[in-house]
């Protein structure tokens, strides 16, 4: 078979997608494929260009690789722009003088940023924002200036503003229209968006027509507006829209749309049927399309056209969901209510910064579109409802109003959607396809669904729906996937923690009455006890809490195999006076307790009977000890080496730091136990890198390591921040610990929690250092409250006769438990084994 020649001009996201789909279709072998890219690199993820500033490298953004193209038989000319098309001779000539013949030609030339004709726009310090090279130039300039202005308050303009704030510039957004993102959202949404963005320190100037760019010594210095006002700035980024790159098509006489773009039919054919156009350069049904979704659909249709298929373009879905400067913004369907008779329901919460609008049909039966600003978690579901056109519930406003207590979820579940409805609009994957893949390939994770179907690999906003479909299919196959706490709560620990905090719930009875069912169990009760303790810090043995506690917490000691308890007083940092050692020994001797040094630089006293615990603690407290919380899912020790005070290698006083940290976080109830250590130098004698939070001294301060673990699955802690002073160290730890307490699952150590965090250590840094979620102040305040309200639980218990009364083995007798029998071993007492004591206690066992 003789191969035909195919030339693809442009290797952006859409050009790349086209080649990818063509090769995947198995028809790649029928063609000699040549592609030109004027940029000095192959296709990359332009949608996420801003993440280049967050440390992503060009290669991490890249979508294509030379090797992959080579394997597929695609010849690539990078950095060589196609300069002309000769339709008569059917060949393309490049800037570097290459002439390539074609049987079929695909234009994927994209678009260029529109630079408005403002006098002075040639000044140094004026930029556009489209390519990696643009971003590198902006970054180089930004390093020398303090302020920057973005002209254009649309989607791309706000992206650019985000980039400037990340470079540390005082950032302004100048918009001609009276509101931000006027293409996507309405006035109400624009107001909320503006307020949120201004709260992040970006100055927004709407209704401003820039008439002149003033420069000094050739460098930009000021913007002048039509209303006479002005704005001092050292940098300008134009982001006032895009225009299709249709110059090649114009020059060779192809039909061009009124406002630019190569006109195509529904099979992506231009006025010359041998030439196809796709992506931002194409003009279809009266307009061009600046989103990647429609571009990808055109790529699919073009492949179909070239391979004998009959795929046709329909109406494009221009729905979008983005996070702009950390603010969720979504717009879908007929967002501007242009359909005759359509009605609008909206909800505004200017305190929380949330705006939601739905456009419904005249009969209120169908959802036509909507706008979400500030909170867009229901986007995927609302979009599916719009596309599937299923009947709405009787009160569509319920879809956007905040959930009322105990109310049923207002959104019809994913079950209500027809099999053919699109779940992933980016990759055009239908619900039926996803369900079949889950079932046939026995998928058991959202990641698995993504790689098997491609769904969720675009913008990712359908991931919650994928999760729901997965849960539903797995349930159908008899597999469990829920992370619901237990049969009494259809919620995760994280959700319950949130509800307790925001609704001020102070008891388990209230929690289960409002959010659960039944009477609870050994799973949800201790989890609730921990949540309540880390939120309100009431004594764990208060009447309304005592029944929730695992036996260790309930008796403030650690139960052992025979039902006796061990006692661990706190020894902060492992520093102990000789007097305290003597006191410990005296108490152990008096009560006949087996003594052992623990791995956490403390002493554990074993074999205490339930009714002895108060007397033991009276002595220990008199000797200056307090509860060590060895019984709780709480901070255990902050272990330390001896540090610079004694050690000739130490560079910081690790003991003092460890004692300070231990005293600050002692008693904090967490999803699981917390261990910590401080090493005085890089020799790491305290083994801080195996702890939930570890600190290693440096010449300049402290390095902080997070989420390590010893035990069953050892895992090294991750280096989180370096050379911190002590105050910053404490601040980061406050935030980290509270964030973990709030968001981890029950009995999930920090290491497992970390392994499930999308984005890893970089994400933790964003949340805890850069405050990307805006919660750091709250986390610190929560921790401050816990620290202030700390009381030694044993001291408080000894002062309360009602609590003390529960420390008895038998409610009707002062006798000790006759089954606790001791045997001597190596000069100490150990519990008798069952065979040693069975004959003595069998009378008591019916």
């Amino acid at each position, binding site marked *: 078979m003789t191969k035909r020649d195919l030339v693809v001009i442009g290797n952006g996201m859409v050009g790349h997608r086209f080649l990818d789909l063509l090769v995947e279709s198995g028809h790649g072998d029928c063609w000699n494929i040549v592609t030109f890219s004027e940029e000095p690199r192959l296709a990359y993820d332009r949608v996420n260009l801003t993440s280049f500033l967050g440390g992503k490298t060009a290669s991490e953004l890249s979508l294509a690789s030379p090797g992959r193209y080579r394997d597929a038989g695609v010849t690539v000319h990078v950095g060589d722009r196609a300069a002309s098309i000769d339709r008569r001779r059917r060949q393309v000539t490049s800037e570097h003088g290459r002439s390539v013949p074609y049987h079929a030609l695909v234009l994927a030339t994209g678009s260029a940023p529109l630079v408005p004709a403002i006098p002075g726009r040639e000044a140094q310090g004026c930029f556009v924002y489209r390519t990696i090279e643009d971003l590198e130039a902006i970054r180089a300039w930004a390093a020398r200036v303090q302020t920057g202005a973005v002209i254009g308050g649309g989607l791309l303009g706000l992206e650019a503003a985000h980039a400037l704030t990340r470079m540390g510039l005082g950032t302004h957004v100048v918009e001609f229209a009276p509101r931000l993102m006027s293409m996507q959202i309405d006035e109400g949404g624009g107001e909320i968006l503006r307020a949120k963005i201004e709260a992040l320190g970006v100055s927004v100037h709407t209704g401003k027509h820039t008439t002149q760019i003033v420069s000094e010594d050739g460098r930009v210095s000021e913007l002048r507006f039509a209303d006479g006002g002005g704005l001092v700035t050292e940098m300008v980024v134009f982001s006032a829209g895009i225009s299709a790159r249709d110059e090649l098509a114009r020059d060779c006489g192809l039909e061009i749309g009124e406002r630019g773009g190569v006109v195509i039919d529904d099979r992506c054919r231009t006025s010359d049927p041998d030439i196809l156009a796709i992506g931002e350069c194409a003009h279809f049904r009266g307009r061009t399309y600046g989103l990647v979704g429609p571009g990808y659909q055109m790529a699919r249709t073009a492949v179909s056209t070239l391979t004998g298929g009959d795929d046709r373009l329909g109406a494009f879905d221009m729905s979008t969901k983005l996070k702009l400067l950390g603010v969720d913004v979504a717009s879908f369907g007929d967002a501007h209510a242009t359909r005759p008779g359509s009605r609008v329901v909206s909800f505004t919460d200017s305190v929380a910064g949330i705006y939601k609008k739905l456009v419904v049909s005249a009969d209120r039966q169908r959802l036509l579109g909507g706008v979400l600003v500030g909170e867009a978690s229901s986007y995927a579901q609302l979009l599916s409802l719009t596309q599937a056109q299923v009947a709405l519930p009787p009160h569509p406003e319920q879809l956007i109003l905040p959930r009322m207590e105990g109310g049923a979820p207002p959104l019809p579940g994913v079950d209500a959607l027809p099999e053919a409805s699109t779940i992933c609009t980016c990759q055009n994957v239908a619900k039926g396809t996803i369900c079949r893949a889950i079932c046939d390939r026995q998928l058991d994770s959202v990641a698995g669904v993504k790689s098997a179907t491609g769904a969720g690999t675009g913008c990712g906003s359908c991931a919650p729906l994928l999760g729901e479909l997965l849960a539903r299919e797995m349930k159908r196959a008899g597999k469990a996937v829920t992370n619901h706490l237990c049969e009494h709560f259809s919620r995760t620990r994280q959700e319950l923690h949130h509800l307790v905090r925001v609704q001020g719930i102070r008891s388990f009875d209230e929690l289960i009455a409002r959010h659960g069912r039944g*009477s609870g169990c050994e799973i949800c009760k201790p989890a609730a006890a921990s949540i309540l303790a880390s939120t309100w810090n009431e004594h764990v043995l208060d009447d309304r809490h005592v029944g929730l506690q695992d036996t260790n917490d309930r008796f403030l000691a650690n139960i052992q195999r025979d039902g006796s308890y061990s006692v661990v007083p706190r020894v902060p940092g492992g520093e102990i006076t000789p007097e305290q050692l003597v006191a410990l020994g005296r108490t152990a001797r008096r009560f006949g307790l087996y003594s052992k040094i623990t791995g956490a630089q403390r002493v554990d006293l074993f074999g205490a009977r339930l009714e002895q615990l108060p007397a033991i603690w009276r002595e220990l407290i008199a000797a200056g000890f307090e509860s060590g919380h060895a019984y709780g899912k709480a901070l255990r020790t902050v272990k330390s080496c001896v540090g610079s005070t004694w050690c000739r290698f130490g560079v910081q006083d690790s003991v003092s730091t460890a004692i300070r940290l231990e005293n600050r976080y002692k008693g904090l109830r967490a999803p699981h136990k917390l261990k910590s250590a401080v090493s005085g130098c890089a020799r790491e004698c305290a083994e801080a890198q195996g702890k939930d939070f570890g600190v290693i001294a440096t010449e300049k301060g402290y390095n902080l390591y997070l989420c390590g673990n010893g035990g069953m699955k050892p895992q090294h802690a991750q280096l989180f921040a370096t050379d911190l002073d002590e105050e910053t160290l404490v601040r980061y730890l406050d935030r980290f610990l509270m964030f973990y307490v709030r968001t981890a699952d029950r009995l999930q150590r920090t290491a497992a929690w970390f392994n499930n965090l999308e984005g890893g250590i970089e994400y933790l840094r964003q949340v805890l250092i850069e405050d990307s979620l805006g919660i750091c102040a709250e986390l610190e305040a929560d921790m401050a409250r816990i620290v202030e309200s700390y009381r030694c639980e044993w001291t408080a218990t000894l002062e309360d006769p009602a609590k003390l009364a529960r420390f008895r083995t*038998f*409610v009707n007798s002062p006798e000790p438990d006759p089954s606790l029998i001791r045997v001597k071993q190596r000069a100490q007492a150990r519990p008798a084994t069952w065979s040693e004591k069975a004959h003595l206690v069998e009378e*008591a066992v019916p």
Partner: protein
Amino acid sequence: MRALALAPEPPWEDVCALDDILPGTGVCALVAGRQVAIVRTGLALYAIGNFDPFSKAFVLSRGIVGDRGGIPKIASPIFKQSFDLRTGQCLDDSRVRVPTYEVRVERGRVLVHREPRPGEHHGA
């Protein structure tokens, strides 16, 4: 000791006040030489043997009280097996059952029957 008793003892033993047991918790009483776990749920009072056949320790009264699918139960504090408070049946191992005792409240006092309910119970 029971065999030597000269006069028949009354079959019920007064062990404590109802108020001594917080709803949602248990206590242990020594009844005719045996350890009995007396458990108070939100609505009812139950009594089962305090011996946990799995750990071979006398600890069931110190477990967490709750329900499984509506069955009132207590979970051993050692290895967490659950026991039906009404029947003593272990809900995690059909071969294991602990004894149960009749229990009632009179004028605010908790009375436990001295002998376990007749019926089979099996250790682990």
